[in-house]
């Protein structure tokens, strides 16, 4: 899988729509996922994330629009193409009465992995840290171990493109972090990962993030770009030794590179949204000196993704 980073998009959709009767699950989805990236698909429950994954994996037929996965419409997928896809389902679907090893072996068989696969499977179990539990029945595993077993089963045939549907749902923050470490490792090996999550903060681990809401893809951005989109630019925090008065704030809002209103944090601290932090910091320092304000701190802020997401959704609702 290493050195498999070819140029181009591994997934492309154009006006992709899926309806169930009157209900529109996914509406006019336009999206490109570059090969070799971690693409996060973020949104609240029921926003159409799983439906999109099912459309991309060929489980659902689109109502309208076009799509290309691995350069093909899923309608034209051969067995070989299907072997290039790994799919982790939200819930645990493996066999509770089989052991960890037997489940993994079963999955390897139906993906057609060669019979001399013991070493490969052991390596996978090492990767998900289940080597010591290989003889345990799946029904005796904890929730987190079941997710790790599912992940190992998804990787058993070394797929090029991984669709992971809420892989971190319902597991503790430490294990969630570990999962993202696994994903980064997989990316480093050349896999492309399409990951849905309702944990907005996980967007930070992605190369690109698609934000879904009400069946619509609101935007695709890098994590930083997402923040900029949410706040209208980069956010810079300024703390001074003197009080920042209302005339100062009005002046700040009047600067050409400052967007929107100044956010008051305290008498001596505000947050301003600027076009680009890289150029704005120097200009803000100049402005402070001119106003006889002693700058104690000036830095680019990274608002939590929860706030970013809420802002984006609020904007969307306001636009509607």
């Amino acid at each position: 899988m290493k050195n498999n980073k070819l140029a181009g998009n591994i997934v492309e959709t154009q006006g992709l729509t899926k309806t169930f009767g009157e209900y529109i699950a996914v509406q006019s989805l336009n999206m490109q996922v570059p090969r070799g990236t971690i693409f996060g698909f973020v949104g609240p429950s029921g926003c159409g994330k799983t439906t999109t994954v099912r459309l991309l994996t060929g489980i659902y037929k689109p109502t309208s629009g076009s799509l290309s996965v691995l350069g093909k419409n899923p309608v034209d997928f051969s067995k070989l193409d299907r072997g290039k896809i790994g799919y982790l389902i939200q819930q645990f679907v493996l066999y509770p009465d089989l052991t960890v090893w037997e489940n993994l072996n079963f999955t390897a068989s139906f993906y057609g992995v060669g019979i001399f696969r013991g070493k490969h499977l052991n390596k996978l179990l090492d990767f998900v840290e289940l080597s010591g539990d290989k003889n345990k029945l799946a029904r005796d595993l904890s929730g987190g171990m079941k997710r790790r077993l599912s992940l190992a089963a998804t990787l058993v045939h070394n797929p090029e493109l991984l669709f992971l549907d809420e892989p971190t749902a319902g597991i503790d923050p430490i294990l969630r972090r570990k999962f993202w470490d696994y994903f980064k490792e997989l990316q480093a090996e050349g896999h492309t990962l399409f990951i849905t999550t309702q944990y907005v903060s996980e967007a930070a681990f992605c190369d690109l993030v698609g934000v879904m809401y009400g069946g619509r893809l609101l935007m695709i951005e890098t994590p930083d770009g997402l923040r900029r989109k949410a706040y209208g630019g980069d956010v810079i925090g300024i703390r001074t030794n003197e009080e920042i008065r209302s005339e100062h704030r009005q002046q700040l809002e009047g600067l050409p590179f400052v967007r929107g209103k100044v956010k008051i944090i305290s008498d001596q601290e505000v947050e301003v949204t600027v076009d680009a932090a890289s150029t704005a910091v120097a200009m803000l320092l100049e402005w402070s000196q001119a106003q006889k304000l002693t700058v104690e701190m000036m830095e680019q802020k990274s608002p939590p993704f929860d706030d970013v997401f809420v802002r984006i959704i609020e904007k969307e609702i306001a636009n509607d």
Partner: protein
Amino acid sequence: MIRFFSFLIRISSFLGKELTEIFRQPKLILTLVLGPFLIMFLFGLASPSQGRTLRTTFVVTDPNSFKEQIDSFATSFSAVLVDYVIESDKEKALAALAHDRTDMVIVVPDVPLETIQNNQQAEFLIYHNEIDPFQIGYIHSVAQVYIEEINRQFLQSVVEQEQEDSAPLQTNMETAIVKMQTLRGAIPAGDVNTAKQAADLEKDLTNLNEKLTTFRTLGADILVRPFSAKISGLSDVQLTVIGFFAPAVIVLLLQHFSITFASLSIVRETRSGIMELFKVAPITAFETLVGKYISYLFFEIILAGIVTALAVWLLKIPILGPLQDYALAVVVLLFTSLGLGFLISLISETDTQAVQYSMLLLLASIFFSGFFLDLRLMKEPITFLAWSLPATYGIRMLQNIMLRGSSVPQLVFLGIASIGIVLFLIDWLLLRKKMESQYS
């Protein structure tokens, strides 16, 4: 009081939940209520209103000499003896019996009158090809009634004949008496003519004496029952009731095992959600189904081996036919039963529903496969239902091989194999629909 209400509320939680779950499965309720009722109703329709009829072949050396008697006899027994034919070749008749083209072969004695006159019962040889003790008993009863009727008819004809024969004899006796009187008067004269009359009288008396001698020397039992019947089956094995039912029980067990295991297989996977993974994976419905068939066949064959060994060693049930035929019959039975089980699994929505369908099939198999009621006694439309069950074919095959010592009956084998293949194809199509993406 509050505690009591809390107690009631806690009970109501399960009351509501259980009832809601049950009523969410209308198909299950329908099968639970209507299934057994329907089976009983159909069984009522299938049950015979009169005894079994027997297709009969009469074997006589010279068909023309006995045709009239056989026709008359068969007509008087038309409620039991049907489609009767008269055959001169015994071997040909027995071959027809072995191939189920006739139910009973009656070999008429060659020279019955001479045999009886030699103070021996004229024996009718009656052949059947039954292994069911109840059916053998039925044939014995029919044969008994048959022979009683022949004896009655024979006695009647003998009495009529004797009455007819005794008329000239009586005239002769009267003449002899007259002659005796004349002779008594003519004795003193001593003429030649009178001497001739005396000679005639002596002849008549001698004749009468001979008839009386024959009559007196005949045994009373021969006189009362001049004909007897010897009944033989084509198979020499004497079966107990357990022995007869053992192959059917083996078939029902194997069918039920296969259907139960297979019926839970796919429905569980559908419920667990792994089917979604199959849709994305490069595995096809055909590969999945073949894999499942092979694994269950492997397991069921081991099970069949154990059940057969127990039947042979513990119950002393013979396998008179070739073992390879027995194995072939078991494999085709398992294959077809698995097909039926997978079909149940594919159309069921829950485990409970699948188990319920399997139980209904077992019930239907007990009633309609010939296990409970002989297929030949069932009414025609219901036999279609009987022949749609693998157990019906299985019982026929195993009884033939185990108890009759025959090989696999070809038509029955072709029948069950065809059903098995059709079921495989249906299962394949249904699984494809379930497993493969909506694009397919």
